[in-house]
C-alpha cells in the first residue's frame, strides 16, 4: 500500500476561484449561490488491485461490496425459507428435517433478512453509493473508516455463517433471541451457536456505527453549494433519518448482546431468574427476562423503520421521476420521515403486549403506535397524489413502486390491528403476525430494493437492465409474494401459532393444510424468480443497452456526474452547484419535462418554477 496522496485532477484550487467569481455580485444575481466555506480536498486514490477493489476507500465501491455481501446472505436466507416452507407445506417430506433444524432455519432466516440483508443493503449498499453522489460530495467524509466499516460487516457475516458449522449448529432461539431459552439446553445451538450469533451482532453494530457516522456527517457537512437540507432528495432524507435511528437503537442491541454473552459465559444473571431444569436448580437468580425484551425491542422497533425509512425515501424519488411529476407535498414528506423516526422510539413495547410486562403500559404504547399511523398514511396519500395527473411511465421501475404501494398499504393496515392492544391479544404469536411483518417489512421494502436496482443499475454499470425480463421478474414476484402473505393472515385468525414445527392433527389446522401447501408452492416459485434478476444482470453486463448519461431524465445530482459510471471523486474537476430541488418535473414553460438541480435560474428564465 505505497500509494501516495496526489493531486490528480487539480480540483484543490477550485474553491478560491469560485469565491472570486461570486464576490461582490451577490445582489441582484438570480444565479447567486453562497460560496463554499471550506476548500475542496483531494482524495486518496488507490492504485493497486487491493486498494482499488478490496480495501477500497471509494464509497461507491464500498456500497457495491455491501450490496453483494448482503445479497449473498439474502440468498442464504431465501434458501432457509424454502426449507421451512417445505416442512410447513409438506411435513416429513424432507427426511433430514428435525425440529432442531427447523428452529435453526427459522432463527437464521429471520436474523439474516432483517439485519444482514435489509439493513446492510439499504444503509450500507444504497447509503454508501447514493449519499455522496446525491448531496454533491466527492466521497464520504471519512473514507478510511468507511472501508473498515464494510470489513467489520464482512467479518460479522463470516462469524454468522461459521455458526452453521460449529458443534450443535447455529442458534435456534428465534430471531428475537429471548432468554432464558436462548442460552439454555433445550434450544438448538444454545452453546457455540448463540455465542457466535451474539459476537456477530456485536461486530455488526461496531462496523455499522463507523459507516453510520460517515453517512450522518457527510449529509450534514459535505453537501455541495446550494444543496440546502430542504433541497435534498427524499432518498437522502430517508437514509439520513434511518441512520440517526440506527445510531440510537443499535447500542441497545449491543448492550443486550454483551449482557447475554456474560449470562452465558460467566453465569451472571442479567436476564436469568431462578430456574429449575430437569429437577435441578441452575446457578442463576434475580435476573429479568422481560428486561431483555425491552432492550431488544428498543432496538427492534426502530430497526423496522431503519429498513422502512430508506424505502420510503427511495420510492418517493422513483415515483416522482417516472411519473414526470414533482413529489407531492415534499415538506410534508420530510417531516413525516423525521416524525416517524422520532415516534419510533416510543412504541417498542407494542411487541410486548402479552409479554407479562405491566399491562397498564398497553394504553400508552397502543396510543403512540396508532399515532404513527397518521404520518405514515400521509406518505401513502402523497405517493398516490404524485401519480395523479402525472405522465406515468409504466416501466419496470414504476411497476415495483406500484407493487410497493399495494403491499405496504396492506401490511400497514394489518399493523393497525396488531398495534391496537386488545386486538393484538388473539392475534399475537399467530401467523397473522408472520404475514403482517413479511408484507410490510419484507415484501414492501424488497419491492423498493428491486425498483432501485432497475433504476440505478444504469448508473452503476452503464447499461440498462432488460425490460422484458424485468417485467417477468416483477409480476412473478409481486403476484407470488402477495398470494403467499395475503391468505397467510387467515391462518392467524384460525389460531395457528407461529414457530410450530408441526401442527399434528390439531383441530385448527385441518382446514389449513391445503392453504399451507399452496403457500409453500408459491414461496418456491417466488424464490426461484429472483434468479431472473441475476440472469438479467449477467446478460445486461455483456450485451445490455448502453445507458448514456441520465437515461431516466432525472434531476438529482447522481445523474450529473462527469462520467457514467461515475469515477472516483464523482464530479470531475468542479463540484456541481445546486440551484433548485430535485423535483422540477414538467415545469410550465420549460422546454423539457425536467430541470436538473444544477441548472441555474438564468437558463430557464421563462418558467413558472416555485421557489424551493
Amino acid at each position, binding site marked *: 500500500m505505497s500509494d501516495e496522496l496526489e493531486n490528480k485532477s487539480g480540483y484543490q484550487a477550485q474553491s478560491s476561484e469560485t469565491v472570486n467569481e461570486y464576490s461582490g455580485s451577490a445582489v441582484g444575481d438570480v444565479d447567486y449561490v453562497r460560496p463554499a466555506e471550506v476548500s475542496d480536498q483531494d482524495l486518496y486514490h488507490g492504485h493497486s488491485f487491493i486498494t482499488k477493489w478490496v480495501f477500497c476507500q471509494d464509497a461507491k465501491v464500498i456500497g457495491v461490496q455491501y450490496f453483494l455481501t448482503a445479497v449473498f446472505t439474502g440468498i442464504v436466507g431465501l434458501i432457509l425459507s424454502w426449507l421451512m416452507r417445505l416442512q410447513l407445506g409438506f411435513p416429513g417430506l424432507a427426511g433430514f428435517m428435525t425440529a432442531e433444524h427447523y428452529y435453526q432455519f427459522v432463527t437464521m432466516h429471520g436474523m439474516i433478512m432483517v439485519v444482514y440483508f435489509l439493513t446492510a443493503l439499504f444503509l450500507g449498499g444504497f447509503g454508501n453509493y447514493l449519499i455522496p453522489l446525491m448531496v454533491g460530495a466527492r466521497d464520504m467524509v471519512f473514507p478510511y473508516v468507511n472501508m473498515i466499516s464494510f470489513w467489520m460487516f464482512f467479518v460479522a457475516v463470516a462469524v454468522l455463517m461459521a455458526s452453521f458449522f460449529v458443534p450443535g449448529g447455529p442458534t435456534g432461539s428465534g430471531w428475537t433471541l429471548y432468554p432464558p431459552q436462548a442460552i*439454555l439446553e*433445550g434450544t438448538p445451538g444454545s452453546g457455540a451457536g448463540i455465542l457466535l450469533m451474539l459476537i456477530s451482532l456485536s461486530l455488526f453494530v461496531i462496523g455499522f456505527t463507523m459507516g453510520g457516522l460517515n453517512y450522518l456527517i457527510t449529509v450534514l457537512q459535505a453537501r455541495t453549494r446550494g444543496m440546502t437540507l430542504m433541497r435534498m432528495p427524499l432518498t437522502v432524507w430517508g437514509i439520513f433519518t434511518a441512520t440517526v435511528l440506527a445510531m440510537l437503537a443499535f447500542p441497545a442491541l449491543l448492550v443486550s448482546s454483551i449482557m447475554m454473552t456474560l449470562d452465558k459465559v460467566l453465569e451472571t444473571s442479567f436476564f436469568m431468574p431462578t430456574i429449575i431444569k430437569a429437577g435441578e436448580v441452575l446457578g442463576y437468580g434475580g435476573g429479568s427476562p*422481560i428486561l431483555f425484551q425491552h432492550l431488544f425491542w428498543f432496538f427492534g422497533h426502530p430497526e423496522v423503520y431503519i429498513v422502512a425509512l430508506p424505502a420510503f425515501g427511495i420510492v418517493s424519488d422513483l415515483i416522482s421521476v417516472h411519473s414526470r411529476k414533482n413529489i407531492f407535498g415534499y415538506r410534508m414528506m420530510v417531516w413525516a420521515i423525521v416524525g416517524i423516526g422520532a415516534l419510533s422510539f416510543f412504541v417498542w413495547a407494542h411487541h410486548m403486549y402479552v409479554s407479562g410486562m405491566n399491562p397498564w403500559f398497553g394504553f400508552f404504547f397502543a396510543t403512540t403506535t396508532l399515532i404513527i399511523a397518521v404520518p405514515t398514511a400521509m406518505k401513502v396519500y402523497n405517493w398516490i397524489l404524485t401519480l395523479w395527473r402525472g405522465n406515468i411511465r409504466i416501466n419496470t421501475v414504476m411497476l415495483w413502486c406500484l407493487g410497493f404501494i*399495494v403491499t405496504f398499504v396492506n401490511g400497514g393496515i394489518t399493523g393497525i390491528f396488531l398495534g391496537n392492544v386488545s386486538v393484538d*391479544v*388473539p392475534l399475537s404469536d399467530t401467523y397473522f403476525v408472520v404475514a403482517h411483518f413479511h408484507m410490510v417489512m419484507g415484501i414492501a421494502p424488497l419491492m423498493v430494493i428491486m425498483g432501485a436496482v432497475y433504476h440505478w443499475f444504469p448508473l452503476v454499470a452503464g447499461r440498462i437492465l432488460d425490460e422484458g425480463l424485468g417485467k417477468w421478474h416483477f409480476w412473478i414476484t409481486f403476484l407470488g409474494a402477495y398470494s403467499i402473505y395475503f391468505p397467510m393472515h387467515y391462518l392467524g385468525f384460525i389460531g395457528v401459532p407461529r414457530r410450530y414445527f408441526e401442527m399434528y392433527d390439531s383441530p385448527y389446522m385441518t382446514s389449513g393444510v391445503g392453504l399451507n401447501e399452496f403457500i409453500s408452492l408459491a414461496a418456491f416459485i417466488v424464490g426461484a424468480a429472483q434468479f431472473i434478476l441475476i440472469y438479467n444482470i449477467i446478460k445486461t453486463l455483456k450485451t445490455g443497452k448502453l445507458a448514456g448519461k441520465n437515461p431516466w431524465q432525472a434531476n438529482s445530482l447522481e445523474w450529473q456526474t462527469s462520467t457514467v459510471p461515475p469515477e472516483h471523486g464523482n464530479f470531475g474537476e468542479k463540484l456541481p452547484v445546486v440551484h433548485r430541488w430535485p423535483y422540477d418535473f414538467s415545469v410550465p414553460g420549460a422546454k423539457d419535462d425536467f430541470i436538473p438541480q444544477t441548472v441555474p435560474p438564468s437558463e430557464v428564465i421563462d418558467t413558472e418554477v416555485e421557489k424551493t
Partner: protein
Amino acid sequence: MHAGIVFFLVILGSVLFHIFTPWYWTDIASNWGGMDDTITLTFWVGGGVFVAVCLFMTYCIFKFSYKEGRKAEYKPEDKKLERILTWATTIGVVALLAPGLIIWNQYVNVPKNALEVDVMAWQWGWQYRLPGEDGKLGTTKVININDNNPFGINTDDPYGQDDVIIQSDVLNLKTNRPVKILLRSVDVLHNWYVPQFRAKMDAVPGVVTFYWFEPNKVGEYEVLCAEYCGVGHYAMRGTVIVQDEQNYNQWLSEQETFSEFVAKLDKLEIEEKKIVKKINLN
C-alpha cells in the same frame, strides 16, 4: 394498460377472498367477543382505506399513463388537501383506538368473583392448581419444587395445604364463571393459549403474570403454547374441558389436595421403609 387490469384484479381478488374465505375465526367460546368485533370494525375501516387507495392508484395507471408530448401537472403542495387528509386519518385512527383501549381496560381489570387458577409451565408441559375450600391459593417458590412438592408450595403457608393440585395437562373449568389465569414458569417463557378463548399471556420465570376470561360454551379445547420455548414448543399442548356446574363439581371432588398428596407420599414412604426393613431382615 395491462398493468392496471392486473392491479385491479389483485384488489378485487383480495376483497372476494375475504368475503368467501373458508378460513376464519375458530368459533369463540369466551366473553371476549369484543375483540372479534373490534377486529371486524378494523377490517371495515382498514379494508376500506386499502381498497380506496389501491383503486385510486389503479385509476391513475389507466388515466395518466405516459403519452408523448403530454405534460404532468406542476403542483408542489396543496396545504388544504393535506390538512383534510391528516384530520380524516386522525379521526379514523381514534375511532379504531377507542374500542381497542376500552376492551383492554376490561382485559386488565379482573372481576372480583374470578376463580383463580395457577398454571405452571415447564419445558414442556403444564400442570394446574386450584384454591381449596378457603378460596385462596397458597404462596409458592421455585426453589421449593421437588418430587414431594411439585408446585413449590410454601409449606408454612396455611392457605397452601388445601390447594387442589392437578398433575396433568387437562384442566376443567365451569361455564359462566370468570377465570383468572395466574401464570408461572420454572424455566423459560411459555404462553397458555386457547384460540377459542382469544386471550393469552406469557408465563415468565421469576414473576407471576395473569389474564382472565369467562368460558361460556361447554366443550373440550386444545391448549397451545404460544411463546417459543425451545425445541419441544410445538408439542407443548394441553386440554381444557369446560363443563356445567354439576359436572365440574363432580370432577373437582375427585381431585387431590396438597395435604392429601403429601399424606399419600408419607404413607408410601413408610411402606417403602417397611419393605426395605423386611428385605434387610430377610
